């Protein structure tokens, strides 16, 4: 069902949580760089927090936060110097694991006999460290791990990049108005899937980070930071901050029987209503940290001596996406919005054993017209033709 297996991270004695001050955070960034990692983390750019290379603490969005609402995002100054006092921006980490555009192969025709030689594309997988991965994002990475590496056909580039990725999680000390991780059981506390986890503790007396390790690699890095050991009160303080964040979450998505609810209401009038607002612009899918669709483009140069195949991000909101001989299967906005929502929240469960939504709220904020999937589900639930649990869901229908 919608819940993913909670591999709760219980800090044991050998975990020895530590306290890192702001300089210590700088040492962590430097150490990762020294070990050959490209450190990627949050940075302020063009009016938003995006993920890009960071070299020092000052590169991080120190003293910034944001306001989010459906279709609206604004950076706002904080009245303190919190380093991680914001939540999520438009970028997801998938950009660095599943690149938006990459060449799959290149073929060249030899002059004489016209025969083709195909050059395999070298797998590009730099050592990279993600700094500031939130709990919902850890869950999203786990979902994509399942998609790209969980079956018989493993995506070699994703797998190589994933193997070379070191993850520093950050527990959320505040929630955006668009967040609903608690509903999806993914946050705000990071439970698994990280090498190191930080919780920022900032008050009048101190500005420190509780540092916890989740893997052996993480532990060995932590040991080299010459950080002070944390006392149980520090751990309790960190848990309390995250618990307050959980309480501050305002948005919810009722996932009870959601698969049957959606499959049982494929002709609900709400699909027509949302279709009149949806632009089919693709933004929701491209900002979503779990959406994984791509397309391939075959190109030739003018002389015909070189042909290439490129893979690029795609979305179920384009007409080409469902194009088969004779035309697109999902011509209407209604068909395309319904495909997105039913895949994300219902057929994903059949396909991968989890929900495709981790509750990050990006699709709500970055929809230019502010369409909110939690509202759409609520509207259907409140006036459902068929109550949940009573339908024999015909999931084959969901694709139409």
């Amino acid at each position: 069902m919608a819940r993913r297996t909670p591999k709760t991270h219980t800090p044991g004695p050998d975990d020895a949580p530590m306290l890192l001050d702001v300089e210590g955070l700088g040492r962590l960034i430097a150490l990762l760089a020294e070990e050959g990692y490209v450190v990627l983390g949050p940075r302020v750019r063009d009016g938003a927090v995006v993920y890009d290379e960071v070299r020092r603490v000052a590169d991080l969005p120190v003293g910034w936060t944001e306001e989010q609402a459906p279709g609206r995002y604004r950076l706002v100054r904080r009245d303190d110097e919190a380093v991680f006092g914001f939540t999520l921006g438009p970028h997801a980490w998938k950009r660095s694991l599943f690149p938006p555009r990459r060449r799959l192969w290149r073929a060249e025709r030899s002059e004489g006999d016209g025969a083709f030689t195909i050059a395999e594309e070298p797998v590009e997988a730099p050592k990279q460290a993600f700094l500031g991965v939130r709990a919902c994002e850890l869950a999203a990475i786990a979902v994509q791990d399942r998609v790209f590496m969980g079956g018989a056909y493993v995506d070699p580039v994703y797998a190589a990049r994933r193997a070379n990725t070191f993850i520093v999680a950050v527990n959320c000390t505040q929630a955006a108005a668009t967040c609903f991780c608690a509903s999806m059981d993914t946050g705000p506390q990071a439970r698994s899937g990280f090498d190191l986890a930080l919780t920022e503790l900032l008050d009048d007396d101190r500005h420190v980070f509780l540092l916890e390790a989740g893997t052996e690699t993480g532990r060995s890095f932590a040991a080299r930071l010459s950080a002070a050991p944390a006392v149980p009160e520090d751990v309790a303080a960190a848990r309390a901050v995250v618990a307050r964040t959980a309480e501050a979450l305002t948005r919810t998505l009722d996932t009870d029987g959601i698969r049957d609810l959606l499959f049982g209401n494929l002709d609900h009038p709400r699909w027509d209503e949302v279709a009149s607002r949806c632009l089919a612009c693709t933004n929701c899918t491209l900002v979503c940290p779990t959406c994984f669709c791509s397309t391939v483009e075959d190109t030739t140069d003018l002389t015909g001596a070189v042909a290439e195949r490129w893979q690029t991000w795609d979305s179920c909101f384009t007409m080409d996406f469902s194009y088969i001989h004779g035309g697109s299967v999902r011509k209407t906005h209604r068909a395309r919005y319904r495909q997105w929502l039913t895949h994300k929240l219902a057929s994903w469960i059949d396909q991968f054993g989890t929900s495709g939504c981790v509750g990050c709220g990006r699709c709500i904020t970055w929809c230019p017209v502010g369409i909110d999937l939690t509202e759409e589900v609520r509207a259907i639930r409140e006036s459902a033709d068929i109550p949940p649990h009573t339908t024999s869901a015909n999931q084959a229908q969901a694709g139409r």
Partner: protein
Amino acid sequence: MPVKKRKPKLAVWKFASCDGCQLSLLDCEDELLAIADAVEIAYFPEATRAVVRGPYDLSLVEGSITTPHDAERIHRIRRSSKYLVTIGACATSGGIQALRNFKNVNEFISLVYAHPEYIETLKVSTPIAYHVSVDFELQGCPINKRQLVELISAYLHDRKPNLPAHSVCVACKRRGTVCVMVAHGTPCLGPVTHAGCGAICPAYHRGCYGCYGPNESPQTASLAARFEALGMGHADIARAFRLFTANAEAFRHESEAHEHEA
């Protein structure tokens, strides 16, 4: 691949336009030699005075139809062309000169020309596809050379060109641009506009102004409602949809709806 016996003949025709799209062809510096190698440039007055007689294998047509003479000329060109591809906003939608379609053209003429009696023009500026059948339309004001090279390569190798008709937003998100509408409140036509430019304007913090025309399924009314919520009045919304591709159906309907409200 079957070896083509002779080089295909390429012709470039001009109607009412600024020549910017033809210049995109000359702008293909790196590729120009390869193009000249692969095709015979049979008619291209902007580049050469030499004229090779038709019929032509591939005709690129720039500009819109604005005079009775041109309305006839395009039929002759169609008859002598195997493939006819329109290039740019003028040829595909009527161009900026289609602003006349919303007013009385005689008023413009009397204001602009000292001797209006010398001017022979049609009441409306129309796209080429309004007059003859068109095999492919290349969008943009102007078109970009990367797309032009892609189109010619695809033609030469009998494949479908990779020129998707989805929204500009796809390009913004692939390149990692922060959405100017969501993060800054800047009205942007990107969600209803045909991709192809590479999302240049939002990358420079500007809203897309729709120079590639409507995309494959433009939901203009919903976007216009958002513009209103962002504080734009009806007159400004009408103007936003009435630029280089004002006469494209979806944009024309939207601007007219707001003109009447204003």
